[in-house]
């Protein structure tokens, strides 16, 4: 994998150059990623906004189709395809970037979700390595790393003297570096070694780890679930902020004559999620919380071969009652 070097000020100039050519999305405030009009608007020091970048490829509201009723004739037409314009997502952390390939396998499982992959193909992910992982991070426990390359097209690792070591990971990354050649300098052995040393150092900085071989089906019966999830208030924070949670609901919106069929995010922690007229298979909140954990660490690996979690820690940081996923995983496997 060839590497480059990018000086600190050059990064800001590179971003301004990118903005001239295409849409650039970066952490804008503590809450979300959004398009920036100039490099100055980027909050790169911001470790992770509350909302993960998943909404760029899997928006919270997406029109699946439009319907119009004329008499008893019904006209269906597809929504306009998502903007086929290229865009650059810059400033994601390796854990958020690693989430994309994890959910790619679901959206491509047998039936391919066209709009999702349309957006994925037009998004270049330029991540920045985590030089100070926070208390709730546990990416190393799920096979990730503060300087992991999974899911990124380019990875910028901040070196000691302030420049960035740039790893070119994918074809999209290479074409970006070639197109904006003027901002980059060649890297050398010393920088490559420094990057590797820094990565080990940051990995060690994450003391709180969970040894995570998948949860066994037997753990489903563990009595610990009820006490662990007792405080859970069934809200949608841990699922909506999670970069890998992808459950959704399909609803028709509009009046009977014309409207849209939309896909909206949904959460397995909501009571209505599996409720039908015939019954509610998960009536109490510990059962719903258990489903969320079993799905991430047992069922998804069994179907997709990947753990449905990148260890970003948002579900721990933003949970209204501070339920800690790491404590749950350790307690369940006892």
């Amino acid at each position, binding site marked *: 994998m060839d590497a480059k070097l990018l000086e600190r000020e050059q990064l800001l100039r590179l971003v301004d150059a990118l903005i001239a050519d295409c849409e650039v999305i970066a952490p804008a405030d503590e809450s979300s990623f959004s398009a920036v009009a100039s490099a100055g608007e980027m909050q790169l020091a911001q470790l992770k906004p509350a909302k993960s970048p998943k909404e760029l490829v899997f928006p919270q509201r997406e029109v699946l189709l439009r*319907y119009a009723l004329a008499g008893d004739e*019904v006209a269906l037409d597809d929504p306009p395809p998502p903007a086929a314009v290229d865009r650059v997502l810059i400033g994601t952390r390796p854990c958020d970037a690693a989430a994309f390939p994890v959910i790619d396998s679901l959206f491509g499982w047998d039936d*391919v979700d066209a709009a999702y992959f349309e957006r994925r193909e037009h998004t270049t992910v330029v991540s920045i390595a985590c030089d100070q992982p926070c208390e709730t991070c546990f990416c190393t426990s799920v096979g990730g790393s503060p300087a992991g390359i999974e899911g990124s097209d380019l990875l910028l690792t901040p070196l000691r003297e302030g420049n960035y070591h740039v790893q070119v990971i994918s074809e999209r990354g290479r074409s970006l570096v070639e197109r904006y050649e003027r901002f980059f300098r060649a890297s050398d052995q010393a920088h490559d070694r420094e990057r590797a040393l820094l990565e080990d150092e940051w990995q060690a900085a994450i003391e709180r780890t969970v040894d995570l071989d998948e949860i066994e089906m037997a753990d*489903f019966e563990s009595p610990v679930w009820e006490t662990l999830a007792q405080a859970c208030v069934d809200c949608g924070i841990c699922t909506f902020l999670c970069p890998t949670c992808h459950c959704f609901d399909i609803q*028709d919106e509009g009046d009977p004559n014309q409207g849209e069929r939309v896909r909206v995010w949904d959460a397995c922690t909501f009571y209505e999620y599996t409720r039908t007229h015939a019954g509610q298979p*998960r009536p109490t909140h510990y059962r719903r919380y258990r489903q969320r954990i079993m799905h991430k660490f047992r069922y998804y690996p069994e179907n997709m071969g990947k753990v449905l979690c990148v260890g970003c820690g948002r579900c721990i940081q933003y949970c209204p009652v501070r339920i800690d996923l790491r404590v749950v995983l350790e307690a369940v496997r006892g």
Partner: protein
Amino acid sequence: MENIYKPRLMTVEAVTQETSDVKTFRLAFNNGDGRDFCFEAGQFGLFSVFGQGEAPFGIANSPTRGPHIECSIKEVGKVTRAFHDLNPGDTIGFRGPYGRSFPIEEMRGQNLVFVGGGIGLAPLRSLLWNCIDRRDEFRDITLVYGARSVADLVYKPELEEWNTMEDVDAVLTVDPGGEDENWTGEVGFVPTVLEKVQPSPENTTVITCGPPIMIKFVLLSLANMHFEPEQIITTLEMKMKCGLGKCGRCNIGPAYVCKHGPVFSYAELQALPEEY
């Protein structure tokens, strides 16, 4: 790439009122859209009334009696009520067929026992007519079907037809108190009547579908009659939204009911957590 959530348009050809809250809809594809359409008994589809939403229903007719589609819908909620307001000529949407069908090939050469309850007869009806149209490939066919009352029995004309067929042994029942003066069938809950019929587990497959409470006791009766879990096939009713394994709703244990089901053997169900 094709929009996997876009339904085909279908027109309501006929609506039959089966019971006070169950209607059967006969649907035909619009403008010849159904030429390449084929399905297998046990599969389901997402039926939609535009403006109200989508809901999953089993396809109730046999593939041998296509290419139209029939489905029986009980009025319980928003989409089902919208269906019950439809009249012949109205347009609906259909996505599918989805899911794994009944293992009809493995059933060849076996005795078949259909055990249905209430509207649970709909998916069984698809397989039953399918087997009747390939009658020589199966040994004895028995149907044990019951409902709360005579008025709650669905597909009454076909029940008569099956009753008169000599190569189908149909045993109809209504729950105690559900009979009326000219009811000639059995009176009793489906599991008890099943024990009276006492099918032998020798080279036999049981296909059952109905309310969860009925399934529970039917499984007990079958166990008393030494049926192995692999011999019992059922189809699950679970909330589904996409039918394509994406929306996560129908996930129980490692299985996605819309992809790995809705047809499961009881042995497969025993491996899943009790969440259905």
